[in-house]
């Protein structure tokens, strides 16, 4: 199952893109039950494309909450357009999900 959920909604001629990503977003300062530091594991980069044009790039670090949520407002946006969300984390993992605006 994909780690990314995407939903869109029409708002006064614009399209709201909401995305929720399942990710631990560990900043490296938390300890586990044994008192050992949990290594940093966070998303570094989030890319959002609309019909394969990059519209948003976001750089972040461990100070974004666990299971990060973002929303953006796309001007225009038509039914049948594709929205692609891609993330990359500091350990090299990556995931991508495509959504067709309904």
């Amino acid at each position: 199952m994909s780690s990314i959920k995407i939903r869109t909604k029409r708002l006064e001629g614009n399209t709201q893109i909401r995305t929720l990503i399942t990710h631990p977003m560990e900043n490296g300062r938390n300890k586990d039950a044994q008192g050992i530091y949990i290594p940093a594991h966070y998303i570094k980069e989030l890319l959002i494309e609309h019909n394969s044009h990059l519209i948003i790039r976001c750089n972040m670090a461990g100070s974004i909450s666990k299971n990060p949520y973002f929303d953006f407002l796309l001007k225009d946006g038509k039914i049948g357009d594709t929205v692609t969300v891609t993330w990359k984390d500091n350990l090299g993992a990556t995931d991508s999900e495509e959504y067709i605006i309904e």
Partner: protein
Amino acid sequence: MFESRRKFITNMLSLSACSLTFASGLFHSSLAHAQQLKKSFSLRNFDETIEHLFRGEKLIDNHNKIKFHRLPRVAENGAVVPIKITSTLKKVTKIYILVEKNPHPLSAEFFLSPAVEPQVSARLKMAKTSNVIAIVEADGKFFRKIKRVKVAVGGCGG
């Protein structure tokens, strides 16, 4: 005829190369950029982070064209602090979110293309009571808005 065809092809090639470099300059990170990025997220001192990001550019304060939504005055749980930033400024290209007293003050930076409205929302972690700062870059100028957020750890007040 062959000459002109060859010329045409080389022209097309150089044109596409040009547009590629332009696009990469806008959105894709080069190596130098990646290093700068790494540094801006790893800095621990708030003033140093500001200096590193904006290099002495003037930050125009408390601009009424930037608004915070969802950001509470008192956050009950510092692990999840919702924030939404909207702006009525024109030509917004970047939005930065900083939390002054976090171990690493820079939380996120958003690069927005003209196809999106100047509006972002996210959820932040906050180590303790601190100022949350949004800096919006619009038309080469920087606008800043600050809000103090109290973090109540375990419901005991901050």
